[in-house]
C-alpha cells in the first residue's frame, strides 16, 4: 500500500500516475485528530493566556469602539477563495470516495476562480496593504519561545500581544500558501490535458510521462493536505475564543476590548480616521 500509484507507460517505463486515494481518509482523520487533541489540550491542560501589556490611557482612549480589521475587498477575496476552495475539494474528492457526478468542468472552473482571486490577492496586498504583516517577524519568534517555555511551566517573561495576526495564523497562512501554490501551478498545467472549451489548447506533450506523473502526485498531495488544512481552519474559525476574529472576516471589524486584549497597538496601529464599517487597517494582508 504505497503513497503513490504507478503504471507502466507506452515505452515500458514505470511512471507515477497519482496519489493513492486512501490518503483522502488519512488527511481527514489527521485533521480530526488534531482538532480533538487541540480541544482537549485547550480545555483541560492549557494555562490562561497572559500577555505583557502596558497601554497608556491615551492609547486606550484613542482606540475606536470598533477596530477595523478587514476591508470589504479583503473580505470579498477571502470568501470567494473559500467558495472556490470548497468547490475544488468537493469536485476533486467526492468522486474518489464513490459519489459520482460530472466533476471535471466544475473543477477547472473553480480552479480558474481560485487562481484569479489569488493573483488579485497578491497584487492587492503588494500594492495596497502591508504585504509583510502576515509573515512571522522577530518578535513572533521571540514570543513563540516565551510561550512555549511558559506552557511547560518554565520561567520566561510574558510575551507581547500579537500584531495584526497571531503567529499561528501566520504559520497557517505560510503552509496554505505552499499547498495552494502547489495545486494552482500544477492545476494550470493540467488544464492542458482536458477540454477547457478553448481557454487552453490541449497539448499533453509539453511534458513527459514522468513529469506529468509527478505533477499529478504533487497536485494530489497538496490537495489532500488542503483537506486537513481546511478542516483545521474551520475548527479554529468556530472556536469560542477565535469567534471575534471570524466575525471580523464577516463584518470587517473587531471590538476594542478584544483588540486591546490580544493585539498590541504598537505592533498593529489602528487607522482611527477610517469609518468602522467600511475602513480597513493599513496592515491588512488577509
Amino acid at each position, binding site marked *: 500500500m504505497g503513497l503513490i*500509484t504507478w*503504471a*507502466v*507507460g*507506452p515505452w*515500458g517505463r514505470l*511512471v507515477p*500516475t*497519482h496519489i493513492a486515494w486512501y490518503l483522502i481518509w488519512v488527511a481527514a482523520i489527521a485533521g480530526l485528530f488534531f482538532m480533538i487533541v487541540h480541544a482537549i489540550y485547550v480545555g483541560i491542560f492549557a494555562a490562561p493566556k497572559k500577555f505583557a501589556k502596558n497601554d497608556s490611557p491615551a492609547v486606550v482612549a484613542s482606540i475606536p469602539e470598533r477596530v477595523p480589521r478587514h476591508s470589504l475587498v479583503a473580505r470579498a477575496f477571502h470568501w470567494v477563495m473559500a467558495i472556490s476552495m470548497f468547490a475544488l475539494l468537493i469536485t476533486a474528492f467526492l*468522486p474518489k470516495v464513490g459519489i*459520482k*457526478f*460530472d466533476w*471535471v468542468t466544475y473543477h477547472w472552473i473553480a480552479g480558474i476562480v481560485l487562481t484569479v482571486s489569488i493573483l488579485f490577492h497578491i497584487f492587492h496586498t503588494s500594492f495596497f496593504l502591508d504585504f509583510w504583516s502576515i509573515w512571522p517577524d522577530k518578535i513572533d519568534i521571540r514570543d513563540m519561545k516565551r510561550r512555549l517555555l511558559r506552557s511547560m511551566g518554565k520561567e520566561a517573561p510574558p510575551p507581547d500581544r500579537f500584531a495584526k495576526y497571531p503567529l499561528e495564523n501566520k504559520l497557517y497562512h505560510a503552509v496554505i500558501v505552499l499547498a495552494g501554490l502547489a495545486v494552482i501551478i500544477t492545476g494550470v498545467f493540467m488544464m492542458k*490535458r*482536458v*477540454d477547457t472549451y478553448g481557454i487552453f489548447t*490541449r*497539448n*499533453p*506533450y509539453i511534458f513527459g*510521462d514522468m513529469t*506529468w*506523473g509527478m505533477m*499529478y502526485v504533487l497536485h494530489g498531495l497538496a490537495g489532500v493536505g488542503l483537506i486537513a488544512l481546511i478542516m483545521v481552519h474551520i475548527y479554529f474559525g468556530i472556536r469560542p475564543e477565535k469567534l471575534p476574529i471570524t466575525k471580523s472576516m464577516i463584518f470587517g471589524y473587531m471590538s476594542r476590548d478584544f483588540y486591546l486584549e490580544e493585539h498590541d497597538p504598537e505592533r498593529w496601529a489602528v487607522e482611527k480616521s477610517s469609518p468602522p464599517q467600511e475602513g480597513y487597517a493599513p496592515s491588512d494582508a488577509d
Partner: protein
Amino acid sequence: MAIIRDVMPAFDLLQPGSAADAQKLLQQHGDEAWVMAGGLDSFDWLKDRIKKPKVLVDLSGIDELKGIRTTGDGVQIGAMTTLTEIANHPEIKKNYSLLSDAVSLVASPQIRNQGTLGGNVSQDVRCWYYRDGWPCYRAGGNICYADTPVGRNREHAIFGADRCVAVHPSDSAPALIALDAKFVIQTPKGERVLDAEDYFVGPEYDITRINVLEPGYLLTAIRIPSTWAGAKFYFEKVRDRNVWDFPLMNVASAMVLSGGNIDRIRIAVSAVSPKPMRLKAVEDAVHGKPADATTGAMAGKLAVQGAVPLQFNAYKIPLMRNLVKRAIGGVQEATWA
C-alpha cells in the same frame, strides 16, 4: 502493458447454476470478480493479461438467463441468450426486427453463436490504447493517448468525450434504446429495472465504468415492451469490412407513422461517443413531420450539431448526418417498394 499474450492469469473459476447464486458470488467477491457471459470480450482482456481478476464468475451454466419468452407486454430476453438465437427468433423477427437486424450484423456467425445479448451491451469500449493496457484515464491514469495530435483516433468519438474518446461499439445497444427496452438488474438490494439508455455510463460520470453495473450487480434480462412492435424500423451499420468488424458507426430507429407523418419515433446511434446516444433532439424535431428525405436531411444536420472531431475522424460527421437522414427518409422509401 500487455507483454505476455494468450496465457491467462490464474483465477478461481466459479460456475454458478442459478442467477441468485451468481449474484451472491458477485456480491461476495466484490470488485475482485469478473463476470463472463459469452467470453468474447473477457478473453481479450484476460489473455492480454490486462485484467487480472481473482475470481471469474462464468454465467454460461445458468439456464434461467437464457431464452426468449413472450410476456403480456412484449418479450423478455435472457441476458445469456445468444445473438444467433435472437437473430432467428420468429417473434423478434416479426415484431422487433430492428433487434434481429442489428444482432445479425454483429461480427461473424461464430461469434454470434457464442456471444450473448448481455455481453454485447456490456462489452467494454473500443480504443487501441486502452485495450492495449496503456495507463490512460479510463485505465486509472491521467492521459488520453488517442486524443493527441498524432493519436490514432479514426474510430473514436465525436460526442461525449470527457478525457476519454473511446466509443461504445455495441450493435444491439442502439436498437434496444430505439425499442425502449428495459434492463433488469439483480442487485444486493433487489431487482432494478432501467431504461436502456440509462444503463450506460459516460466518462463524465465515471471514467472507469461503462455501465451501471457495480460489484454485486448482475444483468439478468432485457425486456422489450410491445409499444414499438411492428413499427417501421431502420438499422444500418457502417464498418470497414462486411464481416467480423466493429461499427465505425451504426444507427437504429423505430417510427410509427400516421398519414405519412411521424407520429412517434426513437432513434439512437453507437460508436460516436463513449456510450450509445439517443438522439432526443432529433426525435423532437421530426415529430409530426413527413418521413421523407427532406425531414431526414434536416434531422441529419441537427444530429451532428455539437460534434467535435478529433485529428482523424472528421469523416464521422457527414457519416452520422447521412445515417440519420437515411434512418428517417429510408423507412419511407422502403414502403414505396
